[in-house]
């Protein structure tokens, strides 16, 4: 079922947590809400499922406004961060609880519980109690309990946060598989960008109670709307560098290079303050010679090696290169950037391409 938020705002007393948020999630789509701690992800989720009343705006499921529909009738499945299993009930009773509330036939419940617990491979645990389950198993129980009553919408609040690294990797694909199998519309809250990118169709990136950008993972990486998104997505992170426009050239205190026609035709003016962003993989000895400085720090990562280059004005630009370490700490180097992939932001931190066209034309 399609979920639409229209000018949704939420205040806690005097504090404005969400301001005029617009969000549209297509039926059957999985959207990740990604953002730093405290940006309002959980608040948004709780407003959708009805735990919080909203201050203003509208929430729609399909074309029905559900602002005033009580939580019980919204039919939303929620997986809480700590799973919130019922400790005094067995796994079977936990999963069956939403069905029993709906006064379903016993045989029908039996059959559904069997079917769903097999789907996530916990059918041999049904007689145990939650505290005798591992974190990953509890997570599956929580997921199945949310899904078994066929909700309109599935909401997950950092469902993988409490799992260890290996299990997190496995559950990532597992949750995605189940979401696609059931075709349910889902929102995943996370502050882990890898999780967001690998599990969702689209990412909505939030900061300060506002959605900064909604797009596919690839687009978000290659074409961030502003410096916040550019800085938040990507690991190792993007490097920024400040300068101004002078006669077709981007000029910083320790770097200067000619900007392409396409960039220049975006309404920037002489002496305008600019900030460029360049991802580490686009800084390389083969690309040219405008990045001149000494190597400040080297981080070998096995398959790749990460270099921090300090330019003469003290600003740092990162480069990641395939293979083992080739250069020494403190060595002076003169490398270049792949100009096609340099992002240019104006003084407000907005990408000058997307400001004009919505998306950036490839150069």
């Amino acid at each position, binding site marked *: 079922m399609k979920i639409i938020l229209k000018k949704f705002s939420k205040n806690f007393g005097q504090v404005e947590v969400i301001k005029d948020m617009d969000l549209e999630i297509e039926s059957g789509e999985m959207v990740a809400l990604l953002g730093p701690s405290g940006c309002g992800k959980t608040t948004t989720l709780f407003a959708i499922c009805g735990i919080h009343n909203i201050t203003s705006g509208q929430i729609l499921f399909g074309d029905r406004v559900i602002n005033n529909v009580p939580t*019980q009738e919204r039919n939303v499945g929620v997986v809480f961060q700590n799973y919130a299993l019922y400790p005094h009930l067995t796994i079977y009773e936990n999963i069956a609880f939403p069905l029993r509330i709906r006064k379903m036939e016993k045989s029908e419940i039996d059959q559904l519980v069997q079917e769903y617990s097999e789907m996530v491979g916990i059918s041999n645990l049904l007689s145990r109690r939650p505290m005798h389950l591992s974190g990953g198993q509890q997570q599956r129980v929580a997921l199945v309990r949310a899904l078994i009553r066929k909700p309109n919408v599935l909401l997950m609040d950092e469902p993988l946060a409490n799992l260890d690294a290996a299990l997190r990797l496995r559950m990532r694909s597992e949750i995605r598989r189940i979401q696609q199998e059931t075709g349910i519309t889902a929102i995943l809250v996370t502050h882990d960008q890898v999780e967001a990118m690998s599990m969702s169709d689209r990412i909505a990136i939030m900061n300060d109670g506002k959605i900064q950008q909604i797009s596919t993972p690839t687009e978000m990486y290659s074409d961030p709307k502003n410096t916040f998104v550019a800085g938040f997505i990507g690991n190792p992170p993007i490097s920024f560098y400040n300068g101004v426009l002078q006669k077709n050239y981007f000029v910083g205190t320790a770097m200067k290079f000619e900007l392409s026609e396409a960039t220049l035709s975006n309404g920037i003016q002489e002496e305008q303050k600019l900030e460029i962003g360049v991802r580490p993989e686009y800084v390389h000895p083969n690309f040219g010679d405008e990045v001149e400085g000494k190597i400040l720090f080297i981080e070998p990562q096995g398959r790749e090696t990460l270099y921090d280059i300090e330019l003469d004005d003290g600003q740092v630009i990162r480069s990641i290169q395939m293979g083992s370490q080739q250069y020494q700490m403190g060595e002076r180097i003169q490398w270049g950037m792949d100009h096609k992939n340099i992002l240019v932001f104006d003084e407000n931190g907005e990408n000058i391409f997307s400001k004009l066209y919505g998306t950036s034309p490839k150069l």
Partner: protein
Amino acid sequence: MEKHNSNRISTIILFVLSLPLFILYFFFFLDVFTVPSTDSIWPESFTLVHWRFLTETLSGKPSIWITTLNTLIFSGCVVAIVLVLSSTAGYALSRLKMPYRSQLLGTLLLLHSFPSVSLLIAIFIILQMIGLYDSLVGVIIIKASLELPFGIWIMKGFYDTVPWEIEMSGVQDGASRFTVWYKLILPQIYPGLAALSIFSFISSWGEYVLPFVLAPSAEQQTLSVYLAGLLSETTAVDYGLLKAVGLFYMLPVMIFYIFTHEKLMNIYGGGGGSKG
């Protein structure tokens, strides 16, 4: 090794310290079933004469069985009222947004620290005005209300340990707030309910002042008043009888305690609640 030694030493010390108690209880049980001798600490012969109050009604006293029944009704009703009201009020104070919540909580503590004797005259007048003076119902209401602040406070503490998400999860699953409370939250604070019923049962079973002052007539008498009555006889006090009634009075609490003390200790040691 050292730990073992210090354990043994503390056991010995504790034993010596509680020796007077053991001796006391030993003679207490001995006296109840024997005829005391005048010139020796050892009794003369076995007898059941002190237990005559069980089969015959003592002169000027109500039947022991009616008195016992009164005490049971009194304690049972107080426990029931305290349980029902504390578990609902505690939930409200722990979970529901309401005005003046913290002030209410503060007042509860204050009420709990009020000695009931200081309220006695006021209660007496009020009961007389509403016509509940000298009735078991009146005493039950008073005793229950005096127990409530403590009960509500305890229950609120137990509710606070139940994760909020469990409740929200229940609501998401389609259950009403009442169903969630009844089916998901209450079972998790079961240890708290058990503790509270034990405390309030023992407290009302031992209550003396309230029934003595507020329900003095023979038909309403509770065991504590009956026992005290034996002491204030105009003739010489029959100590054998007094001890036998005392033992009879203690028995239910002792039995109760034997069956529940493990649970009680659990509550003090582990705090109950849920570990999710």
